[in-house]
C-alpha cells in the first residue's frame, strides 16, 4: 500500500490545492507516472507515483485543499484494505518525545515545621536521629546548618557523636598530624560504617593443606599466593550466592552484575582498596598478575574509580594475626577477613593429625544479609578452597 501525498511545496506553506487528476480510480500506474497537478501560493507542482500499482482511492478530489504531506490517494492491489501508514522520515519532533532522564531524580526530603535546613544538615540529622523541628538554625534567615545539628546531637545525647570528637590533649613534644585526604576519607567512611551498618560476624576454619600444595605445584610467574586462590574461590562463591555480591542502600539492595573483588592494601598514610575487575572471569595466573598490578598502583597512590568493588577481602595473614573482625566497606554488604595459615593439630576420626589451616571471618550487613545466607556463602567458599583443583577446572569461566 503506497500513499500518494500532497507534496512538500515550501517552507512555511502548509497546504496545497489539488488542481486536477490525470488518472482515475482503477487505473494501473508505474513508478514515476504523473498522477495529478497541485498548486501552492508560489507555483504548480506535479505529483508522481512513488511505486507501481492500481490507484485504489482518491481522498482529495479536484479543487480541494489538503495539508502538505497528507495522503490524497492510495495505490495498491485490488482488494487491499487501506490503512493509514506513517510517513518514513517524518518523525515527531524530538522534544515531544519523553527522553528518559539519565539521572533518577532524588526524592525530596521535607523538613518538619517549615524550618529551612541545608541538605547537609538534613542528611546528618537523619544519620544521628536528630529532630530538626527542635533545632534553632544559626545560618542566614534561620537556616539550620550542619553544625547546628551536631551541636544539638551533642546536647541531646550527652554522649559524643562520632562526627564531633573530644579534642585530643597536645602538650610538650607531642606531634600533631592533621588528617591527610586519605586519612580523613578513611575516618569518615569507617565511622559511618561502624555507626550505621548493623554488622554481624561469622567465623570458619578452612583446611588449606591441598591449596598450598596446588599453589606450589602450579608454579606460575608471578608466583601464586594463597590470596589468589582465596580471590578465585570467593568469586565463584559470590556467583553461587549473589546476595553477598551486592551494595546496600537506604531502601534498596543492588545486586551487582559484575564481580569486582576489592583488596585492602596498606599504603602510606592509610589503606586503599583497588578492585580486581571481573575476578570470576580470570584464571589463577591472571589473578596473580592483576593483584600485583593493583597493589603497585595502590602504593603509587593510583586507584581506578571504576569499577567499584562489590566485595572486599582484607588480610592480616602476613602479620601472624589468627583472626579479626573487619569493618564493612560501604556500600558493600559484606567483607572477608583472612587470618594467617599455619599448622594446627586437629582431630580427624578420633585421631590427631597435623593440617595447615586458617580462620576466615565474614562480616555482613544485617540490613541486607541474614545469617543463613552468609553461612551458606562461607560454606561454599570453604568448599572451593578445600578442593582447589576445582578452581582450575573452572578456570576463567564465570558460573
Amino acid at each position: 500500500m503506497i500513499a500518494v501525498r500532497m507534496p512538500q511545496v515550501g517552507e512555511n506553506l502548509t497546504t496545497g490545492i489539488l488542481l486536477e487528476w490525470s488518472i482515475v480510480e482503477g487505473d494501473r500506474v508505474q513508478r514515476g507516472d504523473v498522477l495529478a497537478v497541485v498548486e501552492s501560493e508560489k507555483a504548480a507542482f506535479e505529483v508522481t507515483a512513488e511505486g507501481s500499482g492500481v490507484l485504489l482511492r482518491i481522498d482529495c478530489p479536484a479543487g480541494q485543499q489538503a495539508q502538505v504531506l497528507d495522503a490524497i490517494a492510495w495505490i495498491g492491489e485490488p482488494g487491499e484494505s487501506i490503512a493509514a501508514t506513517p510517513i518514513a522520515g517524518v518523525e515527531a519532533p524530538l522534544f515531544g518525545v519523553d527522553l528518559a532522564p539519565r539521572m533518577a531524580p532524588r526524592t525530596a526530603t521535607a523538613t518538619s515545621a517549615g524550618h529551612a535546613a541545608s541538605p547537609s544538615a538534613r542528611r546528618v540529622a537523619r544519620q544521628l536521629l536528630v529532630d530538626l523541628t527542635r533545632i534553632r538554625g544559626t545560618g542566614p534567615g534561620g537556616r539550620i546548618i550542619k553544625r547546628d545539628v551536631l551541636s544539638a546531637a551533642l546536647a541531646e545525647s550527652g554522649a559524643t557523636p562520632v562526627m564531633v570528637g573530644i579534642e585530643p590533649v597536645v602538650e610538650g613534644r607531642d606531634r600533631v598530624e592533621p588528617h591527610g585526604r586519605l586519612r580523613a576519607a578513611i575516618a569518615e567512611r569507617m565511622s559511618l560504617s561502624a555507626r550505621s551498618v548493623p554488622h554481624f560476624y561469622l567465623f570458619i576454619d578452612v583446611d588449606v593443606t591441598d591449596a598450598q600444595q596446588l599453589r606450589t605445584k602450579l608454579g606460575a610467574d608471578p608466583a601464586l599466593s594463597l590470596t589468589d586462590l582465596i580471590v578465585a574461590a570467593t568469586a565463584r562463591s559470590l556467583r553461587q550466592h549473589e546476595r553477598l555480591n551486592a551494595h546496600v542502600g537506604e531502601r534498596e539492595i543492588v545486586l551487582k552484575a559484575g564481580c569486582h573483588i576489592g583488596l585492602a592494601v596498606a599504603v602510606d598514610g592509610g589503606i586503599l582498596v583497588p578492585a580486581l575487575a571481573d575476578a570470576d572471569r580470570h584464571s589463577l595466573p591472571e589473578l596473580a598478575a592483576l593483584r600485583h598490578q593493583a597493589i603497585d598502583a595502590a602504593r603509587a597512590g593510583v586507584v581506578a574509580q571504576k569499577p567499584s568493588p562489590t566485595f572486599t577481602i582484607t588480610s592480616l595473614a602476613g602479620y601472624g594475626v589468627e583472626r579479626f573482625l573487619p569493618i564493612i566497606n560501604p556500600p558493600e554488604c559484606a567483607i572477608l577477613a583472612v587470618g594467617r595459615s599455619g599448622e594446627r593439630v586437629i582431630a580427624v576420626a578420633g585421631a590427631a593429625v597435623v593440617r595447615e589451616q586458617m580462620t576466615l571471618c565474614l562480616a555482613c550487613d544485617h540490613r541486607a544479609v541474614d545469617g543463613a545466607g552468609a553461612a551458606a556463602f562461607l560454606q561454599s567458599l570453604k568448599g572451593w578452597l578445600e578442593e582447589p583443583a576445582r578452581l582450575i577446572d573452572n578456570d576463567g569461566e564465570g558460573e
Partner: protein
Amino acid sequence: MSTSDPELLARLYRTLYGIRRFEETCIQLYRQGHIRGYLHPYLGEEAIATGVCAALGTEDYIVSTHRGHGHCLARGGRFDRMLAEITGKATGYCGGLGGSMHIADPDTGNLGANGIVGAGIPIGVGAALGATIRGEDRVCIVFSSDGAANHGTFGEALNLAAIWNLPLLLVVENNQFAVSTPIDKSSRVVDLFHRGEGYGVDSLAVDGNDVLAVYDCATDARRRLLAGEGPILIEAKTYRHAGHHVNDPGTYMPQDQVELYKGRDPLTLCRRHMADDRRADLIQNEVDADIEAAIDFAHDSPEPDVDAFLQEYDR
C-alpha cells in the same frame, strides 16, 4: 583534441546525465517528503563539476559548496549512498548525520559540501598546505560561487594560496545569482576572474556549459599546478535552471536568460559532440536503472540508531 575521443565523451556524458537525473530525483523525493531541510539542485551547472573532476587524479582533493551533489557525483560518488545520506539513512556517506549540505566522502578526496558560503575556501587552502608540507604530488580543487566571491574568506584564502604558491585550483561557479541577488547588483566587475589578478593569481574564464572546454581548461590547470605554477583561478560562467533551492521558483531570474541558457543545456551540447547517438541512449538507460535501484536502496535502508548516536557524540 578531446572532441574526437569517444571514450572520454561517453564518460563525460554519463556523469552529466547522472547528475541531471539525480537532481531531478532528489526534487521528487523532496516533494514526497523523504528529503527534509535544504536542497540546492545543480541543474544547469553539470558541465562544471563533470569537466573539472574528470581531469583529476585519484589523490586530488575537492572541496564543495552548499550546491554539492554534482561535485560529489562527478568525483565518483555513488547514487545509492548519496540518496541514502540525503534521506538521512544510516547507509549514507555520512551515516545520515550530514545531509545534503554536508555530504562528504574523504576516502575519495571529497572533503565535503559546506552550508556556510565561502567557508570551504580556507579549508581547501589547508588541504593544499598540508600536501605541500608533506611534499606530495596532489592538487586541491575548491569549488566556490559568485556569492562567495564577495565574502571575506575569498580574498584572504586566495591570498594565502598565492603567497604560499599552493597547488590550488579555485573554480568560481558563476551562475550569476547569489540566492536572488544578481551579479551586477553585488559586484561592479561581473567577470569575477579579474579578482584573482589583484592577488597575482593566474586567472581565466571558461564557458561553464561546455563540458569539453571545462575539461580541457582543468586538465591544463592541473598540469601547471603540479609543475608549481599555482594557484590558479577559473571562472566558469553558467546559469541555474531553477531557483536557489528546491522551494525557490526563481521568479527573479529573467525569462530570456533562462531560455538562453536552457538552449545551451550542457547535456545537449555534449551529446552533439558524440557521433554515436545510440550509445548516449544506452548510457541514459543504464543511469536510469541505477537511479531506480538507488531509490529502492535508500527506501530500504535503516535509520541510524539514536542510542548509538548519543553514545558516540553526546560528550
